[in-house]
């Protein structure tokens, strides 16, 4: 007899169907709620504190004039950029790890981060770079470099479709080249420029304006919608290409589109917050363990990425000394948390 609690009911709405897993839904909802809470706390804390209820009221358009100015004009862009970058990184990481079938893969492997970093360091340190930087602005130039590198990896991987193994190996090589270029430029540069470049390299949410927010926001929303719709086709692909083909999934096309989305999402994140490291690697692995899911969950990874990024930013501003960049704090929190989950799982298995 089949053990009843092991079974999960299916849900069908029109042409869509999925399995009802209460734990997954519960954790996802809790993550979403936590993200919203941290988002609000992050807005409420600053040079002077605005009470949480006032923040929530203002967010829904019922606040006072003063609060509205401080929140909407000053604090909202920063928090929103953190949210966007976190969600993009989390989803991008989950997609990359699903497609590469490799827990160590992340958008860093796709070349985005490496390309953007090399470009940015070139602009900051090299003589000719200053002209480009002046013309385009550092973030735009870095984004261009990152996207070009990402597309280079993408098309180098392309050979009658995309293969996960080829993808990560080519990605790792391209990233190695970019990293070597970055190191080389740093070795040659003046030490003052190195300090500036290094600051950019860890990513930051400082001094954001609305103009930067809107584009990234719309692009992210569009990409996330595309990913969520196609994700229905991704699920069977975890069983391997043959099974997926048998279930009527055009796996080659799905993989190509989803990988492109992963590249673009990582690009969005870089343009929004700089090359914040590790969020994309760590978020899917942590949510897999929180959700007890065998594969990287997309939505929850995005939420956790946002939670990690905004939470780290909040900690960096409020608790930690001397203004650490957010990219450092995400790693200091995310790394040990992942290790904790791994160790806990191991020890539990012994019991």
């Amino acid at each position: 007899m089949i053990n009843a609690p092991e079974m999960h009911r299916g849900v069908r709405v029109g042409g869509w169907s999925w399995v009802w897993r209460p734990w997954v839904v519960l954790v996802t909802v809790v993550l979403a709620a936590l993200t919203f809470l941290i988002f609000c706390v992050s807005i409420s804390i600053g040079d002077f504190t605005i009470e949480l209820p006032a923040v929530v009221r203002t967010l829904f358009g019922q606040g006072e004039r003063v609060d509205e100015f401080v929140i909407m004009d000053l604090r909202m862009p920063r928090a929103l950029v953190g949210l966007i970058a976190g969600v993009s990184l989390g989803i991008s990481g989950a997609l990359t790890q699903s497609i590469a079938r490799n827990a160590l893969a992340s958008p860093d492997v796709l070349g985005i981060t490496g390309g953007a970093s090399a470009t940015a360091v070139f602009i900051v340190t090299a003589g000719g770079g200053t002209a480009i930087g002046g013309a385009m602005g550092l973030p735009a130039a870095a984004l261009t470099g990152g996207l070009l590198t990402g597309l280079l990896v993408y098309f180098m991987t392309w050979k009658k479709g995309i293969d996960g193994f080829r993808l990560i190996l080519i990605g790792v090589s391209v990233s190695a080249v970019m990293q070597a270029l970055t190191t080389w430029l740093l070795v040659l540069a003046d030490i003052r420029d190195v300090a500036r470049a290094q600051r950019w390299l860890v990513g930051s949410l400082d001094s954001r304006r609305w103009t930067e927010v809107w584009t990234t926001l719309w692009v992210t929303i569009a990409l996330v919608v595309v990913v969520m719709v196609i994700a229905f086709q991704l699920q069977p692909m975890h069983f391997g290409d043959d099974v997926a083909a048998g279930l009527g999934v055009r796996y080659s096309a799905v993989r190509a589109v989803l990988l492109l989305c992963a590249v673009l999402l990582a690009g969005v994140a870089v343009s929004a917050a700089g090359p914040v490291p590790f969020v994309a690697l760590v978020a899917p692995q942590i949510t897999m363990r929180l959700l007890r899911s065998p594969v990287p969950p997309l939505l929850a990874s995005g939420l956790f990425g946002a939670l990690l990024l905004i939470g780290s930013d909040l900690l960096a501003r409020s608790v930690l000394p001397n203004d650490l960049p957010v990219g450092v704090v995400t790693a200091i929190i995310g790394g040990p948390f992942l290790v904790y989950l791994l160790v806990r799982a191991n020890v539990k298995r012994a019991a």
Partner: protein
Amino acid sequence: MVVEQRGLEPAPAQERPHRRRRLGLVGLLVLLAVASVLSLVVGARSLTPAEVWQGLFGDPGGDQRLTEITLIVQTLRVPRTVLALVAGLALGVAGALIQGHTRNPIADTGLLGVNSGASFAVVLSVYLFGLQNPVQYMWFAFLGAAAAGVVVFGLSSLGRGAGNPLTLALAGQGVTVFLAAMTTAVALGDKQTLDVLRFWNAGSVQGVGWDVIVVAAIFVAVGLVLALVNLPVLNLFNLGDDVARGLGVNIAAGRTVGVVAVTLLAGAATAACGPIAFLGLMVAHIARWLTGPDYRWLVPYAGLLGAAVLLLGDIAGRLVVRPAELQAGIVIALIGAPFFAVLVWLGKFRQA
């Protein structure tokens, strides 16, 4: 001779790949010898082989020029050549082992935290004690690599899930991430530290004294012995943990030996040269392409390839921006990685 006595066994078909692999090993050794000679000859000041010979074994007497040559050969060229051989061998073997143990094609020698541990220790020692000289902070690099390796291994072997390849890889990644962030945090606050860090990150075999090289070589020797002992077990691991257990392999013990070997090899090499992580990854794949999946062949190939690539990278680094030098770690990534990518694209490599 043993082969003939085996009589009717299907020897010819079996022996041919063996002979080819043996020939390949000989070829690699020849390549290494040539590269070593080149490494002694090439540099900011080119020497002829005869001069090198003179510098190595001759008595300079009172001759100004000969004394100079002896100085260059014995204090500059020989140490860096030896270090490139030792470190390259260590990184190649470690790269093949870590990919075998984690069954992950992008596992590199930095995965177990030794690279970031060494970097963090270097940065910390420079920040706290104001060390300027690589000879001084290299000892801290040793300590840092060892400490990080122990922590990663300890964490991943808690509980009964111990020895799971994925846990090992991810625990290593978690610790690496943490240490790298701490390194950045320290370096961002102090310009002098940042200055040391950027040169450390490049990875170079130049300017390392004999005392460091000898210590590194001892660690590497121990690591190599452990690695060799580990090879037959590693072959069984790659049939899957369940099959290996069924064949009577002690999984935890085999994994432990392998991980300790990787930590010793990669840690010693990294402490002496700085983080050169891509080398191990690259030569492991090339070795698998050349020899097939048998680790008893794959690992020696990877080691020799690693030594050859590091030597050649170092030599190339002396030539490209003369009279200055480009660090070997940078050269390997800039030249080796595109070459590697082409091989990947041609479909030469297969998953472990």
